[in-house]
């Protein structure tokens, strides 16, 4: 199957390893991956911070870039949720009904990585080997907007050598929330203090999630605490081999 990769601007700029990992997994499974270079950003930060007019050109360019593909994969729960839940709706509310129609047609074919693997490609064992103690944090948009359920966990359970442990109070938000982390830094840090305490309680070596922006927040806090826990995107664990 030919799959278009929407790397997302955060991964493209700060976490290129995640994009490379997606390419590695999908190619290993025998699929063709393409990276349309016209892609930039889904517009989530602008929409969620109160700038829907600034998000509009980004929604338009996403639609222009990806509407000819049968399947688009985004290794980010919140970007996939932004595209799927908000692109069409936002375009309609901003009065561009033609764009809304195109977005509504395209966005059901945009998948977060775990969805693509489990629902579309029908695999849970991607042939990964990762002999480490790992705990998984279900990020909010993946959990409540995409309703990923246990899909990421089903993929992780098949990883050879993994010691997968439950995260206490897993469904509690880490406190990132995009610009919330800056605008309400005290509350955000207080939420993350509880999240990192739960992570450390598991004695895991690695915290895994489907969103690098949340991991930047939790990982940045774990690093400041000199906790000895590192964070990894689901794709990077699934891409690991012997």
């Amino acid at each position: 199957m030919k799959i278009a990769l929407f790397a997302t601007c955060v991964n493209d700029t700060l976490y290129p390893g995640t994009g490379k990992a997606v390419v590695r997994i999908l190619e290993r499974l025998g699929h063709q991956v393409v990276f349309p270079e016209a892609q930039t950003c889904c517009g989530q930060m602008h929409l969620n911070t109160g700038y829907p007019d600034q998000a509009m050109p980004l929604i338009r360019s996403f639609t222009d870039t990806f509407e000819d593909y049968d399947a688009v994969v985004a290794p980010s729960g919140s970007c996939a949720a932004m595209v799927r839940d908000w692109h069409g709706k936002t375009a309609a509310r901003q009065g561009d009904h033609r764009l809304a129609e195109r977005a509504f047609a395209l966005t059901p074919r945009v998948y977060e990585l775990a969805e693509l693997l489990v629902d579309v490609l029908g695999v849970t064992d991607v042939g990964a080997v990762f002999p480490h103690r790992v705990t998984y944090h279900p990020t909010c948009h993946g959990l409540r907007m995409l309703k990923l359920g246990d899909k990421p966990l089903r993929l992780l359970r098949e990883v050879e050598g993994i010691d997968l442990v439950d995260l206490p109070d897993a469904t509690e938000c880490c406190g990132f929330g995009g610009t919330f982390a800056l605008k309400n830094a005290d509350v955000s840090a207080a939420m993350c203090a509880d999240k990192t305490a739960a992570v450390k309680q598991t004695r895991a070596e690695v915290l895994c999630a489907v969103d690098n922006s949340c991991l930047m927040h939790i990982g940045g806090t774990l690093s400041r605490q000199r906790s000895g826990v590192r964070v990894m995107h689901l794709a990077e664990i699934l891409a690991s081999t012997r």
Partner: protein
Amino acid sequence: MSATTDPHADATATRMPTYVGMPSFPKAAHEAVADTRLRRNLAHATGTIRERRAAAVTELDDWAELRDAGKRIKDHTLEYLGHYLRMLEEKVTAAGGVVHWARDAAEANAIVARLVKETGETEVVKVKSMATQEIGLNEALAEHGITALETDLAELIVQLADDRPSHILVPAIHKNRAEIRDLFSHRMPSAPADLTDEPADLAEAARRHLRAKFLTAKVAVSGANFAIADTGTVLVVESEGNGRMCLTLPETLITVMGVEKLLPTARDLEVFLQLLPRSSTAERMNPYTSAWTGVTPGDGPQNFHLVLLDNGRTDVRDDEVGRQALRCIRCSACLNVCPVYARAGGHAYGSPYPGPIGAILSPQIRGIGSKVDASLPFASSLCGACYEVCPVAIDIPEVLVHLRAKAAKKLPEKAVMKTAAWGLRSPARLALGQFVAGKARFVAPHLQFPRAWADTRDLPALPKESFRAWWKRTRGDATDPKDGS
């Protein structure tokens, strides 16, 4: 919006008082986050209610259908609000009640003050009510020399402490029982000298204090949980029975009800009397459900006044996205699951409506003129836990984002967001930015970053090469022909 540019400025000023000197949400939350006792009280209390609610909801296999029915009934009623309100007025009047219409808080307060004065009384007992908190009724009555006594245990605690409520259902959630014991010992004349902090002892002290008032009060003031348009029946649901004392013993009952509390028919209660207690107190059924229709000769209050309060609700109704906030049945499930509320506490929201629902109600009722109202739409990480538990499916994150667009119009960050959008609109500009940042990491590895981030979190190291640069370098030839770049 400033007072000079907001066309509703005059209207909103008389709706819900903004507490004098109330700072923005982040500023108020800064102090709350540092208050270890508050954090402990809140984490314990909300954690307990949260688990019990989840269990109470899981018991019903038709919860999703009930929730959808609740949403639809409210939406339908809001759509035909005028029709149903006139029906309610007709039925209440026919049953011997008197209906009053109040455009805003000032009008409602004036009506209630006049009605109390007409009875010749200077003291009223009160049933726990959000609408009267919203309009600041107790303070308004005090200006007329009328004392309003809160009879809900938690409201009584808040009133005795000259405090403000911090939760819709549990107004004194920020206080633990040791604090309440001290308060009763100091402020409640009838409290025994050896009062302990056992909940049963505290309740007994409050019972003795209140019982004397119930038996002598001539006038009661209440809110309403529901009103039935086609019968004229008004309902109050509660746990303590103190509400029923107020609703049955006095000679005069004055009920202040937000217009959105209306339901078309009594059958609709089948849905809401399941949704509300399970979401609110995690009970299958609330202990006391009081319903009355006008007046009944020889039984209960012989004078009944119903004050129908708009106070901005019809403006909220006109907002296509924001109007869903009017479905709210004040259950407080959203507060109990909110990670922001649990850390910031209720007072930071600067309104009787704290938590996620307050963050969308207060700025809509009052407008976004004050510091706190302008900051409330941003007081959320948009985690969506509130929407998940809301029994009438209010998409609170959607309304928050909608209100952010209104509040953002006057923020200085606008230029930054515009520049970012400009950079992100073009892959070439994004690639250039990544290239420059990649080089800069050698020059200034510790680039100045907002302290708001860097105070508690390390920054990720910038990679040598962006993903797109890697792709171009290693797969440049494999670029899909469909790709327009």
